[in-house]
């Protein structure tokens, strides 16, 4: 395809977006925590989970179908949520399996990069992270993106020789 065609596709996409664009608000990659629109979207989505899933004939477990995860409970949960999830979601933390010394380095790097951590909470935050996400914990099991265009009926793809 020529770049000229590419430029015209741009315009086509634009009109598509204009028609449907109000559905989702800003792309989540750009959404900042606290944005009212995101909260409203998530609330609506969670309500949809609550309403639709009980009537689903397939009985899938809905528990993990969340766009973003929460941090584990504990006395530092709220403060860690405020300090860390301003910039990134909880999964980034949930998947780490690090020693206390490495967690300390990470926390200090993040403070340098703008994370707001009260000096009185510094050590407790490191304890919270290194207790919940230590090397001996089982690996985090991530979700997948849903499949709009499956490759095969059994979910398996053909392998080229």
């Amino acid at each position: 395809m020529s770049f000229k065609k590419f430029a015209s596709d741009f315009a086509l996409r634009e009109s598509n977006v204009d028609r449907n664009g109000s559905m989702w608000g800003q792309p989540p990659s750009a959404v900042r925590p606290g944005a009212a629109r995101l909260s409203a979207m998530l609330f609506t989505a969670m309500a949809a989970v609550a309403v639709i899933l009980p009537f689903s004939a397939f009985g899938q477990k809905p528990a993990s179908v969340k766009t973003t995860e929460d941090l584990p409970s504990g006395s530092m949960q709220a403060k860690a949520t405020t300090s860390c999830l301003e910039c990134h979601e909880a999964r980034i933390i949930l998947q780490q399996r690090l020693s206390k010394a490495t967690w300390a380095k990470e926390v200090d790097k993040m403070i340098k990069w703008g994370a707001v951590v009260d000096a009185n909470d510094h050590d407790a935050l490191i304890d919270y992270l290194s207790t919940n996400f230590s090397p001996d914990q089982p690996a985090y099991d991530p979700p997948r993106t849903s499949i709009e265009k499956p490759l095969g009926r059994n979910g398996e793809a053909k392998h080229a020789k």
Partner: protein
Amino acid sequence: MNSRRNFLRQMSGAALTVGAAPSLLSWALPNPQSGAIDVPGEDGLIVRSFRFVDLETPVEYFNTWLTPIPHFFVRNHMHEPSELNASDWRLTIGGEVEKPFSLTLSDLSKLETHSVVNTLECAGNGRSLHRPQVPGVQWGKGAVGTARFSGPRLRDVLQRAAVKPNGKHVMFRGLDEVPGKVPPFIRSIPIEKAIDADTLIATQMNGAPLTKHHGLPARALVPGWIGAASCKWLTEIKVLESEFAGNFMNPGYRFPNQPGKPGEAVKPEDTHALTALNVKSAISAPLDGTKVKSGRAAVHGAAWAGEADVVKVEVSIDGGTSWNPASLGHDKAHYAWRLWTYDWKAKTGDYTILSRATDSQGRSQPSTAVWNPSGYLYNAIDRVTIHVV
């Protein structure tokens, strides 16, 4: 023309559409109990992070020479641009040049287009497999994919700007948005790589315009090098006298000059900036931990080597005691992976299957990858265990 200005605001974002998911989940997903998140245009990928968007290709999709865009991994360090618009987009070329200038999309479209099939891999691919474990996105084996990238050559643009003799490095800046006080994602490449005929300002992947997750409308494409070199949402090219001094050049994306003891700190002066990828292979089938029927069976996978060519892939079905040559697929290109297959007769039992690639520089995959504090360039011999029934 407000609509034109905002045409990308709503595009390509991930969104939750739970209602449609259960019927698909029941048969399409390998692991339906984990649930699925609807990210338009991104199908069946492992969600390492939703915000920022970091999505991994499951190894079972390493079964086509060109990775379909919906299955192509996505790596972001930052928020994607919240707004992009065609009329305002500019690419500026400046720094140590005689004639700085800027390009509109229309200008870019008039430049000669060149195509390169390239295997793009995140330097941190396989990070989760290093021991001891290291911080960062815990990629498994799938922060890698192969696509045909097309667009003008970077050197044509640099030539027009007339690089001064003291211009030795070329810096890229994208439109991604920095949270907090995080340093901007800016990196540079040496001028020799920048003027290589295969280094592009890519506007297309697999014949279609870049999607937003892959850097619409233009990205750098530095073939054979770590993915971080190929800056997305490109908006500025700046010629520098020396390597760009910023977090993502140093201390980020550096590798020990000599292998050290796993878990031990590495002095900054004993490291170098990452450039080309190393030699590597991955088994795409059978999947790890699965049961396979006895009889004729095949092991499939892909192998790649950055700027070098894969010359050999060997497969062991006995945990490394004996090795057998795999047959390499006929699709090939200088910077692209080779698909490979090994046929064998499977008898009932437990098997550890290994794959090992060797490249044109004589490099071969090691049994243990070189540990480093950020977990880059994991390339140990790949391994799956299966049970034949």
